[in-house]
């Protein structure tokens, strides 16, 4: 709640690097990160519920962020995920 703005800002930049997210998703989809277009729905690359839940586990573990298992269906591209998660982490920072 009392997190200073500077820390807040740095959390946004460092807490959820887009590269980290891409690497995790690439791992679950069994393809290299540079073949994933951040604007293309991940289902096109064969994303399923195991992949979606796996990422939920990563977010819990890495960032203490608890998200609904439906996250990847509600935010189906890397771009939309990054947008949502950045906002969530910023919110958690303000509350926490």
């Amino acid at each position, binding site marked *: 709640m009392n997190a200073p703005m500077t820390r807040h800002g740095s959390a946004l930049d460092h807490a959820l690097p887009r590269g980290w997210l891409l690497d995790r998703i690439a791992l679950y989809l069994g393809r290299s990160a540079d073949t994933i277009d951040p604007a*293309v729905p991940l289902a096109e690359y064969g994303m399923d519920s*195991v992949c979606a839940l796996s990422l939920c586990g990563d977010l819990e573990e890495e960032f203490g962020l608890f998200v609904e298992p439906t996250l990847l269906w509600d935010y189906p591209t890397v771009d939309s995920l990054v947008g949502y998660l950045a906002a969530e982490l910023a919110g958690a920072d303000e509350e926490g």
Partner: protein
Amino acid sequence: MSSFATFTELVLDRTAEFADEDVHIHLAEAPAGSAAPGTLAAEHLTYRELDAAARRIAARLQLHGVEGQPVLLLYPDTMGFLKAFIGCLYAGAIAVPAPLPEGSAHSAKGKLSRTTSMIGDCGAKLVLTDRASAPDIALWLATAGHQDVVCLATDTPGFGDAGAWREPSVRPDDLAFLQYTSGSVANPRGVMVSHRNLLANQAALARLLGTTREDRLGGWLPHFHDMGLIAHLLHPLWLGSASVQMTPSAFIKRPVRWLKAIDDYGVTAGGGPNFCYDLCLRRVTDEQIASLDLSRWRIALNGAEPVRADTLDAFAERFAPAGLKAGTMYPCYGLAEATLVVSGGTSGTPYRRREAGKAALERDTLAEAAAGQESRTLVGSGRVLDFDVRIVDPAVHRELPDGAVGEIWLRGDSVARGYWQRPEESAATFDGTLRDGDGGWLRTGDLGVLDDGELYVTGRLKEVVILNGRNVYPQDVEHAVRAVDPQLASGAGAAFGVEAGREQLVVVQEVRHDGDPRELRALAQRVQAMIGKEFNVPAGTVLLVRPGTVRRTTSGKVQRTLMRELFLAGEVRGAYEVLDPAVRAVARARDTLLGEDLLQPAPAAPGGRPW
């Protein structure tokens, strides 16, 4: 062990003998907002507590007159489920384990929830659940048109009067439960498992695995999965030991939790489909392995989907530093129609494997590959101990000799009594007759070969695709795909599995569309998202084809096997298609060879390829 006529008698005996010992340990995920979110907290259940809970539940069930009637069990985890399952046995009711009907409210149009289809088929008038799930269940019952079904939350304080319970009169051939793991959503089939079947299969498990009271079983498989129920939850009861369980989502989120539980709680036997070992290989870190002691794990069951030698070997090697003993990997074969287990290796000794020529296998013969010919590594599923087994030519029902590939036929006390209220399908599957007139055989629908006493499962007669341990029925996928958009609704579709590194789903769907190919891509994306979400399997390969492409018989039946052959021969091309890279390598091998791929227009974006 054979002194018990029913599983109920056995449980009553065990709960009296081992009263204060643990029968079940459930590792519950602490929710967000709790003191330690994301950690697993152990809840213990003793034999005495299980007995007391089951008596209360049974007494309440007896008020509803459920003897010999199906009761649907909808629980989020094994702790509530186990009490209710034993409660059904104590009441002489037929337990029907099922997944929670979650997501059914948001289901894609046209796709029936599995649980909805199950309650419709079994006709249960009573549902047992817990307080947390009850509101959703009540809503589901109302929307699914089952307002007449009574829903009871068994963890309500004061639920049932144990003192009022009367032991039911149950005979060995009465049904203990219905197992709905086979059959599509559109055509569900509840396998009728009797007390005799269940006791016979428990004995078969013990003989194959060499289990004793010293063994603890468990894992992450759900309780409505046949291996999860029969091996992980009920086998420990039969032995007088304990089971250790976590939910599938707790495992998938962090696979190391499963291995940690094996270490922490001394689990000696347990496993799952091949994919869970792959998941551990990819996601458990070296640092985590360094902190694990897996030396007490002696049987790592691997069944319920095709077993891969490379997975077994990689897992054994990677986890050897954690004390995993050589010979722990345990491929096995089973099916719900045989209660569960059919065959398995000798525990503590390495599983058997052999190389088989691909060309010979296609001619249904097990033989070494000729020089320069391709071969395939077959993983042995072990010995068949408690069944009569025959390998049979499925077309003419002639028994085949060792070394010939045919349908696996079984006979024995573990073979279930048929499909619930489906006499014709039951007769076709459970009463196969050999050409010489010898009858009463279970036709498994699986193809295999016996070689020196070892069973090798080589494929399936049925068109079911097995992905991540799930049976995916082509007709369910095809039906749901047509429901995605009106442009797909009138076209035929074919869904089938192909072998490309692992089993992969291919969807070929006719589309009525003359416009912008970019619109086709958006359509394909919706199909992929629907399959990923509703069927929980990856849909990396979707071909939208011109009307008339999907072959059908004169009676209109989709020819999936033919479509699969045409696809693999590179002869099915989409107006728009997206192919998983591994599938592309198989189905478009000739393009690469001839350089034809260079002549095609560049893909619009990675993953998609319109032409």
